[in-house]
């Protein structure tokens, strides 16, 4: 009986550790993406404008705001502070962004997504879509884990 509960406890600790690594990696990705865009907000404003969804003025406002939001939410994931809020915001941002990217493709617009600034400007559409879907999938998995009550008490 003791052995079983020990094994269960160890497995739980390993799983917890692995999920924490996922938190750090995903959080790190968003901090990196946010930092690149903070360094060149004018380029990011142009990238937003290329989607031809929002008026230029709103695009400029988002270009100054969104990178910081990404960075703070990435940090929330790593530090496990305001974790739920950070995870929800990032999931919503990636979802909106995915829809906008697919819409642009359908309309025949060829654009660099701007999500990783100049680092991503040579990627083609399938590469972008695959990476974004992968990140979205991981965010959903993290959300599912939290909502299903697993280690909810750790999130502050």
């Amino acid at each position, binding site marked *: 009986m003791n052995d079983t509960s020990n094994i269960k406890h160890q497995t739980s600790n390993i799983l917890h550790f692995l999920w924490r690594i996922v938190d750090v990696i995903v959080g790190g990705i968003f901090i990196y993406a946010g930092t690149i865009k*903070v360094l060149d*907000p*004018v380029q990011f404003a142009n990238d937003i404008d290329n989607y031809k969804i929002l008026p*230029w*003025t709103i695009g400029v406002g988002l270009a100054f*705001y969104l990178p*910081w939001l990404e960075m*703070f939410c990435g940090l*929330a994931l790593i530090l496990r502070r305001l974790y739920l*809020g950070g995870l929800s915001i990032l999931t919503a941002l990636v979802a909106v962004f995915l829809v906008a990217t697919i819409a642009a493709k359908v309309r025949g617009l060829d654009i660099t997504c701007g999500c990783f600034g100049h680092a991503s400007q040579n990627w083609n559409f399938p590469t972008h879509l695959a990476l974004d879907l992968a990140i979205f999938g991981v965010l959903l998995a993290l959300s599912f884990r939290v909502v299903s009550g697993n280690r909810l008490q750790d999130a502050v």
Partner: protein
Amino acid sequence: MVKSSLVRQAFVLAALAFVPGVVQAIYFGNKVSWRSPVPASEMVTVTQARAWGENAIWVDARPDNEFARDHVPGALPLNEDRWSELLPQFLAAWSPEKKVVVYCSSEGCNASREVAHRLRKEAQLANVFVLEGGWEEWLKEK
């Protein structure tokens, strides 16, 4: 309980991000135009440019064959196909008090912005403007 915690945390993060965003927007105030992708101070309308009269020096950034067909009276050709060949004659006509007005075929073409950018960056000229609407707009207002 989870929902209200989520909303509260999201609100706090959204508010936190607002502060550096506003600071950066102020810092970058003069590097980006909030009204249009090209800084407003670098664009000029046909009416404004015409009002400059003799003080304006018109530059046609279109390909040679389009310039030869028709152009703004007195305009000088300066395009990126023959930049080093055409630049000296433009510089010969230029003087510091003049305002340079660069145009290409329409609002959508990029050649005038690229030529204007090179004049500002490489030749380091001040008072270089891009004509809003380009040659098409000039023809409309003629």
